[in-house]
């Protein structure tokens, strides 16, 4: 008798739960159009400051091409701990509470894999950075999006979070200043969230990659709030502030038990971050402050220019207080965010990212990255102005 053929999917069922990135089709479209101005890139337009690049080159010249300890170079971990203490007043033990990762992206993945059991829920703001929900899903968790609105500057309401908490809730995952909205959470609102984290014994995963790019007020490091250091996985990195996106270098700081768990996953998957990138990061954290301030000042100038310009052409945009994104409403056009971006690209050759990529609540908005030169911003605004003259209502 013949054995019946068993239909087996070649892919992991867990992966099947993750929708393909809505951005890929648009990415192909962008590549097919010549002469575009792109506000669609989520990274600095500066190259890494020269002294940092030079440190990377020197590392290679000196033959630093080998593995480092799993948790990262001891001197880099020490420098990260000192930096966090000096800048935000939170003290981590570099031996046991700091892990050097391959960007915040890997830190996020490790955090999710280290803390989640199948089916455990992770509360995530909507809209939020595209990788948050998939990272939770890949680790077997269940992302629970919490709506935020433009009317409330996309701040995460603790009342809504409180209502979403169930016995299965394990973690709260967020990032401020936020990508894509540029929202900075005021300290008192973070305090209210911290209260919930404490009360329900959750773990906060706080993505603070944009911490140095705060233009109004000050950055509040979530781990510094009362009782939060024991319950927070702080994720940070070098990509945005030091213009080091391609070096792929970040770090995670958390209680020893969590860092140990994250290191266990890290040592069997990534092993360690590249040594030359770690050497460059060491130079960045020790001597990169002036360059960070100079770039942040430049972003601030561009921020004001783009916000004023967007409002002037009929795309209402509150002043984003951090990161380098403006998130204007496009509701006046009656177009969906995807239609808007596609038409804008084809008709005026300006690339922006449609808000729905970042979650259902991002619909009706577009993300414009202003980490591009002022003349490019001005030209993009001119083109968008023409577009709005046709589609604005």
């Amino acid at each position: 008798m013949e054995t019946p053929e068993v239909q087996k999917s070649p892919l992991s069922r867990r992966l099947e739960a993750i929708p393909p990135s809505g951005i890929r089709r648009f990415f192909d479209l962008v590549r097919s159009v010549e002469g575009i101005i792109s506000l669609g890139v989520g990274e600095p337009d500066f190259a890494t400051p020269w002294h940092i690049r030079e440190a990377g080159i020197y590392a290679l010249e000196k033959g630093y091409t080998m593995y480092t300890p799993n948790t990262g170079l001891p001197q880099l971990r020490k420098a990260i701990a000192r930096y966090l203490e000096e800048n935000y007043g939170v003290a981590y033990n570099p031996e046991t509470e700091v892990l050097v990762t391959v960007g915040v992206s890997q830190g996020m993945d490790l955090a999710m894999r280290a803390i989640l059991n199948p089916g455990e829920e992770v509360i995530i703001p909507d809209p939020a950075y595209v990788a948050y929900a998939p990272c939770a899903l890949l680790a077997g968790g269940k992302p629970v999006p919490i709506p935020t609105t433009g009317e409330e500057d996309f701040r995460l309401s603790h009342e809504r979070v409180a209502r979403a908490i169930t016995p299965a809730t394990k973690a709260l995952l967020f990032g401020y200043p936020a990508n894509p909205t540029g929202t900075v959470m005021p300290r008192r609102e973070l305090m209210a969230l911290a209260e919930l984290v404490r009360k329900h014994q959750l773990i906060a995963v706080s993505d603070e990659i944009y911490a140095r790019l705060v233009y109004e007020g000050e950055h509040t490091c979530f781990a510094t709030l009362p009782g939060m250091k024991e319950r927070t996985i702080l994720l940070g990195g070098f990509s945005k502030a030091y213009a080091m996106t391609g070096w792929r270098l970040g770090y995670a700081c958390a209680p020893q038990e969590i860092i140990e768990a994250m290191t266990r996953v890290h040592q069997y998957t990534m092993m360690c971050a590249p040594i030359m990138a770690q050497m460059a990061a060491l130079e960045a954290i020790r001597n990169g402050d002036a360059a960070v301030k100079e770039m942040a000042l430049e972003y601030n100038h561009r921020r004001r220019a783009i916000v004023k310009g967007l409002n002037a052409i009929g795309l209402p945009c509150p002043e984003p207080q951090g990161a380098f994104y403006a998130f204007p409403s496009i509701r006046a056009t009656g177009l969906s965010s995807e239609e808007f971006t596609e038409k804008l690209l084809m008709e005026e050759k300006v690339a922006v990212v449609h808000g729905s990529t970042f979650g259902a609540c991002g619909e009706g908005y577009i993300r414009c990255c202003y980490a591009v030169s002022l003349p490019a911003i001005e030209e993009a605004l001119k083109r968008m102005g023409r577009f709005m003259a046709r589609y604005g209502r």
Partner: protein
Amino acid sequence: MTEKEKEFLRILEKDPRTTPEKLATMTGSSPQAVEKAIKKAEGEGVIVKYKTVINWEKAGEEQVMALIEVKVTPQRDVGFDAAAERIYRFPQARSVYLVSGTYDLAVLVTGKTMQEVAAFVAEKLSPLESVQGTVTHFLLKRFKEDGDILVGKETTPRLPYTL
């Protein structure tokens, strides 16, 4: 000078064509405040002048530059100032610095030809009473000047679209 006023200056130093309106937008100030601050800075000599950096070689015009080390005898009461003044009054002297080390003044001279620069050194600079000696270094290539890189701009090969 306030921090805001220094911010205006930094922007103008990079691009003197930035209009008061644009400066106001970029810094979150009013155009009136910007204009007032600029006028004040101009009046006080904080803003010396508005300059354009030109790469004359690219414009097809030859220009010879030389850095001249000048050893001078300092004079009673006025030190090196009198000698420096005699030199910086010459239109050929583009920059004049008092420096420490084996010589006293560093003078940057420009001319149309090598002969013109040589003639300036031989006929104008060297015969000055206070000048004890000169060493002339002709500039072969300008890579960076006043903080501006002249040999090609760095561009970042970013993808047009990422998340």
